[in-house]
């Protein structure tokens, strides 16, 4: 597998934290352990050869039945080098917390809130971790694979 600059540097810098790397259809991907995610992100942002200054997207994928069940997926873009990378942090169901990267990219604020809203992954150190798209009082996290498609939630609002 031809490892790109990003993946090579990342593996050199954090040999313990990288679980694996691959390049599928030209997308550089690194699978990492969740403990080091903040350091990895800081490194990706600040290293002069990488400079991933954009956090384009943050989402979670639920691999129900697999352990670790969740993957927090970061899509980063480096404007100076015109490069993209995908970082996937493994989050097991038993410990649904991962460090927040809001201090690295402000953009992560709402994306992490959405991930929390939809999957229930808790971002430790997030300044304001509330539901964002759904309302307070919504039960469960709808994008999890075990959330029933047609589940009804109680209607909220003033009751006459």
């Amino acid at each position, binding site marked *: 597998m031809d490892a790109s600059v990003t993946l090579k540097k990342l593996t050199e810098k954090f040999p313990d934290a990288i679980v694996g790397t691959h390049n*599928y*259809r030209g*997308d550089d*991907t690194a699978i990492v352990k969740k403990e080091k995610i903040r350091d990895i992100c800081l490194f990706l942002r600040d290293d002069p050869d990488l400079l991933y*200054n*954009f*956090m*384009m*997207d943050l*989402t979670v*994928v639920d691999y129900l039945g697999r352990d670790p069940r969740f993957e927090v*997926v970061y*899509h980063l*873009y480096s*404007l100076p080098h*015109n490069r*993209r990378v*995908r970082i996937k942090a493994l989050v097991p169901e038993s410990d649904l917390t991962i460090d927040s990267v809001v201090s690295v*990219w*402000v*953009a992560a*604020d*709402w*994306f992490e809130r*959405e991930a929390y809203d*939809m999957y229930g992954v808790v971002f430790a150190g997030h300044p304001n971790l509330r*539901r*964002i*798209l*759904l*309302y307070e009082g919504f039960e469960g996290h*709808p*994008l999890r694979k075990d*959330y029933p*498609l047609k589940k009804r939630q109680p209607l909220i609002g003033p009751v006459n």
Partner: protein
Amino acid sequence: MSEISKDLHTEHMVINMGPSHPVTHGTVKFLATLDGETIVDLDVEIGYLHRGFEKMCENSTWQQVIPYTDRLNYVSPLINNTGYALAVEKLLGIDVPERCKYLRVIACELSRLSDHLTNVAAAGLELGAFTAFLYFVEARELVWDLIESLCGARVTVNYVRIGGLKNDLPERFEEKVRHVFKEVRRLWVDVDKLLTKNRIFIDRVRGVGAISAEEAIAYGFTGPCLRACGVPYDVRKAQPYLVYDRMDFEVPIGETGDNYDKYLVRMEEIQQSMRIVEQALAQMPDGPINVRLPQVRMEPKEKIYSRIDSLIYHFKTVVEGIKPPPGEVYLAVEGGNGELGFYLVSDGSGKPYKCRVRPPCFALTAAMPRLVKGRLLADIVPTFDMINMIGGECDR
């Protein structure tokens, strides 16, 4: 004076703007804490248009997702269609014919045109310039007529297919484009005269909502809002998809990132989009518009009715859906508001395992408090306009 003001009991006023308020087109709620008319704090609440896009996608086949993408950014649906189709094609590892690429470029740019026209028009309307609004809405109407003649619908277009397109160009399309662009350019000049050098308009937008390039990048700004800060990032230039690398167009950038620059960038992009469409029409080769892979793109009806293999493929793709190999891709296109990314995960079945959209205006809307804090209540109006939050895309 200070003695007196010490005794005065004043408190901040909390005011609810929205979810149904004239400025919050797209249903969003601002919880503004005001000191007089100065915004002390602003909380943005979104989610009023949340329809569970991802959950729906996970429960429909790959092709069935396309109509849903129309409803993301309903002002530029063709770009959403194209972005999704390109992402699935990347997942499948297939390439579409040349003519299809040109047609998609034309479709995307027409959509961008209508997006920017709507945005600038709405900005004028909300600042009280009703006439400028109607001029651009008229222009958009003409562009929508073009889109209608192209794909039979004006808003919910559902035009792009995985591995191809719904149909080829209608007859005399080029002629229509020439006519429409002439009109759009005339109206553009009118609006330019009404707004660009209008002292009142400039006073309202210049210096308001300004943000530095570094900060904009940190907030994840993309599209016209980022370019207004002076960062020439455009997916069409940075990582060209389709045939954008063969098109000759400029990426306008601003300096200060304030609302005036955002407005100017959009105005210029309207011109550039028209240039691209004209070039694409001139360069477009003849040929097929669909890939010849019956397991991906359905064959014509006549074949399905007359040939057994075509019928089997048709049955399989309709009932089970097309089946990309397991894997994941992220593909970004330049949407009306910025980078529109699709992150798709396939588990090898006929339905997406995960279909994530990176909505450009999500990151932009998140920066609203930063843009208006400490300014006047009235500054929410142009700032929010220029962010161009589209509820369907932001809330999904």
